[in-house]
Each structure stands twice: as C-alpha cells, then as structure tokens.
C-alpha cells in the first residue's frame, strides 16, 4: 500500500515536472498571490475552481436562475475576489451539511445571499425595526 502510494507520488512528480518541461516555453511565473500566501498574508488556495464548479452544477444554476441571479455576473464576481476571499466562501461551502438536498440548499443559500442585492434582508426578518430608507 505504502509502496503503491510512493510509486504514485513519483509518477505524479514526473508528470508534473514533465508538464513543466513541455509548457515552459511560456515561462511560468510565481504569481503575486502565491508569494503573498508564502509570506503569510493570505492563505494559499485553489478553491476558485471549486466555486466555479459549484456554479456549473445544473441544479445550482437552475436554482439561481429561478431567483433571478445571472450566472455570468456570479462568475465575474468570483473572478474579482482574491484567493483569501474565495477561501472564505469555499470554506462555507465545505462546512455545509453533506446531505444531497441539504447541500444544494446551502449552496443556493450562500450564492443567493452573496449575490442578491438585499443589504437589508436581515431587517426584513425583524419588522419592528425601522427601515433605513
């Protein structure tokens, strides 16, 4: 088992360095965000794709569209966030309950909350507070 893992790791390493070898005609720079992460300013993450993947799910897309959230806008918004900020969103998604229907509910909940222009959603829950308008 252990030797298989080691073997896989070696294979992966070879693949990665080979990939680097092939693509390095286009020089690959270390991004500023990676440097910042290494400096401890933001945490390292490759969570953005995860969020995109979540947005790509047909059921999520349908649920968002039902609520009038434009997917292109949602994607553009995710693109404008830093890795650190994405991490916060991804973390919320990850710590969501794992049950299938529940999970969809949480995903939609997060995106709708994040995306819908309703700053005063909270106060609408409490009708006895005065509106800011």
């Amino acid at each position, binding site marked *: 088992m252990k030797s298989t893992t080691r073997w896989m790791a070696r294979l992966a390493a070879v693949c990665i360095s080979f990939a*680097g070898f092939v693509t390095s005609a286009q020089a690959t720079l270390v991004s500023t965000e990676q440097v910042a992460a290494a400096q401890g300013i933001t945490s390292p993450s490759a969570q953005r794709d995860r969020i995109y993947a979540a947005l790509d799910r047909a059921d999520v897309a349908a649920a968002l569209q039902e609520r009038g959230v434009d997917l292109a806008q949602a994607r553009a918004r995710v693109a404008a966030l830093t890795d650190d900020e994405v991490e916060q969103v991804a973390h919320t998604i990850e710590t969501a309950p794992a049950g299938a229907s529940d999970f969809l509910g949480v995903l939609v909940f997060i995106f709708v909350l994040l995306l819908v222009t309703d700053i005063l959603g909270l106060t609408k829950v409490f009708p006895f507070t005065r509106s800011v308008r």
Partner: protein
Amino acid sequence: MARVAASLRRLVVVLSVLSAAAWLGGCAVQTEALRQSPPPDLPVSAELAATPFYPQTDYQCGPAALATGLGAAGFAADPVQLAEQVFLPARSGTLQLEMVAGARRQGAVATRIPATLEAALREAAAGRPVVVLLNLALTWLPRWHYAVLVGYDLAAGEVLLRSGTTRREVMTLRSFEHTWQRAGAWGIVLTPPGAWPATAGAEAVVEAAVGYERSAAPAQAVLAYRAALERWGGNLTLQMGLGNSLHASGDRRAAAEAFRRAAAEHPASVPARINLSATLLDLGDVAGARRAAREAVELADPAWAERARAALAATQRP
C-alpha cells in the same frame, strides 16, 4: 422539552438585552479622547463638500455608497449599474467583500483603513471620503448600513455623512463611533491606482494591491505597486507584484529589473529567482536565466523545490 427550550430562549433574550444595555451605556472612548486631546496635526474640522451624492433607492445603500466613493476618487459611477454588479449579502463578513470587489472591477483600488476613529477622520481631513459600514441597531439585532464619511467637526462633536437619501447627514461623533465599532469598524478608501490612503498600514496595502492586480489591467497594477513601493520599498510581495505586473504588461526588461531587485534584497526568496529566471529566458539571456534558476534550486526551500527545478530545466533545453 419544548418548555425548557422556551425558557432557555427567554434567558438568552434577557441576557442579550442586559449585555446590550451595559454595552450601550459604555462611553465613546475614542470620541472623548479625540475631543479632549486632539492630535495637533489633525484639523479641528473638515468637510469634503464636493463629494458627489447618489441617493439610495430601495434597499441599496451599498451601491449608493460605493458610487459616492468611486465618484470622489474620479471614477464614473452609476449606482444602478453598480447594483447589478455589487451583490450585497445580508451577512456580515462577506458583504464587505462585495464592496471591495465591486470597486476593483470599476478600476479603483479599495484599501481598508485602520479601525480607529482617528484614522477615519484623518482620511477625511486629507480629502479622501471613507466608505463605512455601520450597524444602526444592536449587536444581536443588526441593521447594516453603508454610508460615506465626508467630514467632521471635533469642536461640535459631529461627523458628516452621505447616507441613504440624505445628502448631508449630521451624526454625533459618539453615535458614529458606536455604530461604526458595532460593525467591526470596517472602512475603505477608494483611490485611483498610484495613490494610497495616508493611514493605511503595510498589510492592508499589500492585500489591496494583490487584489487589485487580479482584476485590473497590468499597466494599472504597475502604477499601484510602484506607489506602494515608494512607502514600503523592502516589501517582497509588493516587489514581486510589480515584477509580475510589468511582465504581464509586456515590459520584460523592467520586469527583470524588478525581480533582480527583489532577489538581491531577499537573499532567501526562491520565487524572486524563479521569476527572474523565467523573465531572463523570455529576453533571451539563457546564461543569466540559468544562473538565477540554479540559485533558486540551491536555496533548497521545500515549498518551492518543484518550481525551482522546473525553472532550471527550462533553461537547460536546447
């Protein structure tokens, strides 16, 4: 069971009311300190009367405040269009991100200012309105509101805000301190790239610059990094950001210079050498690229070992 839950809930409500009352009764510490012994270099009053005003419609104080801040920084701002782009969640913690991301997408740099009343007033005195988040209600029953601080009068104990549908809202300094602190004292200043708020700390500037680089045109990011480096010249992340933005804008020679400087000033930095090597390779300086990559490998930093080896391999191809 239900009865236990109900009485527990009642207990929680009573406790919250008590603690909120105790908290509200507390004095506005910063207000008192500022009014009794104002910093000598802080003007007694200031008002940025020329700051534009976009009255909010419906519940959209966020886009309105953002438009105000953007307008003051010289960016064309249309609150209706912003409302489409800036999505404001009814959740603290993430909703501010939308404001920051929205500003970036309009080309402005959004920098968090220190969480002190003095910093906010200093920015206003320096001619930069501060977009602030306020909690107009209570900690346990929040009513979030975005406004723009455009002035203050220490003698009268007041601040001036562009807020909601009010062009010039006068709020007591005490109320402002309370409602602002209750929202985590979150405040950002929007600037064109190349200008940084005077009170911002190094970490806030690095964060703002890195986030800006992600959405801005490389040439704009270069301006932001150059200006930041004037104040924090030795900061590795800023130096690397400058190099990366220059590289992305197509100025490989200047990029190499920036990476060279980063490598010289940070002898243990592998990324500086990797990027220097890659840029020199772009420029056709294979020997120089190989030297930089070899240095990167020799530093033997496990976090970057793979990248360093790849950089060296790239210089050894025929």
